[in-house]
Every structure is written in structure tokens, then in C-alpha cells.
């Protein structure tokens, strides 16, 4: 009897004006603005369409903290940001304007280096050391895992270099795609082998 009443009441209330997607998006934007103004927006994110698919871009107040390919799962990337950086995450494109512009320019062939502020919170220890050496591999060039290991000060740690590249939180911007096998084959890539090939082809043009 009670359950019956509950269902009927719910049916009645369904006639209330629906909450539209547009209304929620407008509220979300407004929330992002006030959160940023009050300093409680720890991680801002947006997605960006590129020739290698949609990229998730996320930034803290320090700088770009995450770039994730669609194949890596944007939701998963956001979840790990929530767990490892801060749960105060909102869709807030404004903080990513400069990064988006730079990445657009890169894919248009008009940019060869990134000078964006970066936040390496998601990489630790030797992995972080490896990542800090990757920008030394110039645009259009490649290096072997062994060469990167040597540059990072641990010549025998080429496997660890592989792991550092595979777990690079900032692909594209921190050019792990320029690290290939000594025999010249591409090996794996966070965005998939096709994306790695696409970036190297773009840079070779």
C-alpha cells in the first residue's frame, strides 16, 4: 500500500519542469568561475579535439597536470586525478586556454616546443627524472630507451625508461612519443601505436 502511494507520488512529481542539459551546463560554468575565484578549484579540465582523437587536458594552479588519450579513458583519468591530486575537479576550460592553443598550434605544424607551466605531481622519482629529459629530444628527432636511460643518469635502466614513458601523465606535451626501440621500431604508446606514428609523421613533415 505504502509502496503504491510512493510510486503514484513519484509519477505525479515527474510532471515538474525537467532539468535540461543546457541549464546544468550553465550552472556548471558559473560554479567553475566562483570556485576558481575562491581558490577551491584544484583541478580544471576540458577536452580538446585533435587529429589523434579527443584529448583530456587537466591543470592545477601550478600548470598542466594531465593529458589523456581517449583510449586511456577520460573518466579513468579524472578518477585518478581525484584520488591522487584532489577531488575538487571541475570542467573549467578557461584555465586550459593557453595549453589548448599550444596543442592546436602543434598539430597545425606551427609549434615545435611547448613552454607551458607543467605540474609533475603524477610522476615520481626516477620516472619524473626521465620525463624531465624527454624535451631534450628535439622536434622531429627520436631517441632509444637506452639513450634516454643514459641521459637520465642510469644507463642500464632502459626498462624503467619504458615504464616512465608508458605512464607519462603528459603525453604529446612531454614527448615520450620520440622514444623508440634501438632497432627503430616504435614499441608501445599510451595513445596507441597509430597515435605515436601520427605524431612522428607530423614532426617529420
Amino acid at each position, binding site marked *: 500500500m505504502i509502496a503504491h*502511494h510512493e510510486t503514484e507520488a513519484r509519477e*505525479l512529481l515527474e510532471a*515538474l*519542469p*525537467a532539468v535540461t542539459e543546457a541549464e546544468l551546463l550553465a550552472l556548471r560554468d558559473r*560554479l567553475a568561475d566562483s570556485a576558481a575565484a575562491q581558490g577551491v578549484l584544484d583541478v580544471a579540465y576540458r577536452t580538446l579535439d585533435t587529429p589523434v582523437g579527443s584529448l583530456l587536458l587537466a591543470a592545477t594552479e601550478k600548470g598542466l597536470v594531465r593529458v589523456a588519450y581517449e583510449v586511456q579513458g577520460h573518466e579513468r583519468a579524472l578518477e585518478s586525478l581525484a584520488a591522487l591530486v*584532489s577531488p575538487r575537479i571541475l570542467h573549467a576550460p578557461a584555465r586550459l586556454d593557453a595549453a589548448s592553443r599550444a596543442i592546436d598550434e602543434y598539430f597545425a605544424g606551427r609549434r615545435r616546443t611547448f613552454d607551458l607551466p607543467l605540474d609533475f605531481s603524477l610522476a615520481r622519482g626516477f620516472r619524473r627524472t626521465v620525463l624531465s629529459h624527454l624535451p631534450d629530444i628535439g622536434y622531429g628527432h627520436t631517441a632509444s630507451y637506452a639513450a634516454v636511460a643514459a641521459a637520465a643518469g642510469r644507463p642500464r635502466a632502459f626498462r624503467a625508461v619504458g615504464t616512465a614513458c608508458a605512464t607519462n601523465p603528459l603525453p604529446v606535451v612531454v614527448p615520450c612519443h620520440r622514444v623508440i626501440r634501438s632497432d627503430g621500431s616504435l614499441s608501445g604508446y599510451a595513445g596507441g601505436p597509430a597515435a605515436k606514428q601520427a605524431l612522428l609523421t607530423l614532426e617529420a613533415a
Partner: protein
Amino acid sequence: MTEHGAMVLRVCRAVLGGADAEDAWSETFLAALKAYPELPDDANVEAWLVTVAHRKAIDVVRAAARRAVPVAAVPESSSAPGADGRDLDLAAAVAGLPRRQREAVAYHYLGGLPYQEVADVIGGTAEAARRAAADGIAKLRKTYAAAAIGEGEDR
């Protein structure tokens, strides 16, 4: 957080209506954002959001009173009109309920809180909350049905 946005907006609209509801929504999620890192992992996020929304709704009403903006007994809804206008009649009917009934209906039916938790938010016992919601629904059925029939005759 985004998954609860629609629910909280429905609750705020039922309790406040119009632009005040959007203010309460924003304040609720801003407060949630601030408190979120301290929220226990096993917390019931919906219940917690509804509780915050309740407090923010009270704040919004108080702020409006301080600004000396006349608060009509039946707040006008700024929501987009429905295709046939029927849903606006229901929104107006909800707005016309006594405050406790409106809150009980909103928190239980739109917020999904069990009556005990509704009682924790609005005060009183679970049984009183259940009765307030039931009375509210009964009144809605009456006024809303009357409005719907009235409209039918107009056409």
C-alpha cells in the same frame, strides 16, 4: 559531483523556485567542493548534498529577506515553460505548499532521502516527516488536478 547536479537542482527548485534555486544550487556545490576532501569515503553523498542544499536554501531566503526584496508566498517560477504549461501548474502547486510539506516532499521524493534522514534535516520525527510528505502530495494532487481540469475546460 556532476551526477548529482540535476537531483540537487530539482530539490532546490521545489523548495525555492526560480533564480533563488539556482543560487542555492551554486552555493551547495561550492560548499560541497570546499568540504569534499574531508568527506568520509563511505558517506552518502546524496543525503549529504540534500542537507547542504537545505541549509543553503535557508541562507538564500534570509539573504533575500535582508535585501528587502518582497518574497511572495508563491514564488514565481523562472523555469522554462513546459510545452503544454501543465508542469508549471505543478511547480506553482509545489511552491504553494506549506514549507515543511514542501521540504518533506522535495527531500524524500526528489532527493531520495528516507523519512528518518528527512527528519534529521528538517527536524521532528520520521513519522512526522512521512505525514508532511503525504499531506503535501495529497494537496498537490488536489490543486494540480483542479488546475489541469480547469485548463481542459478552457480549451
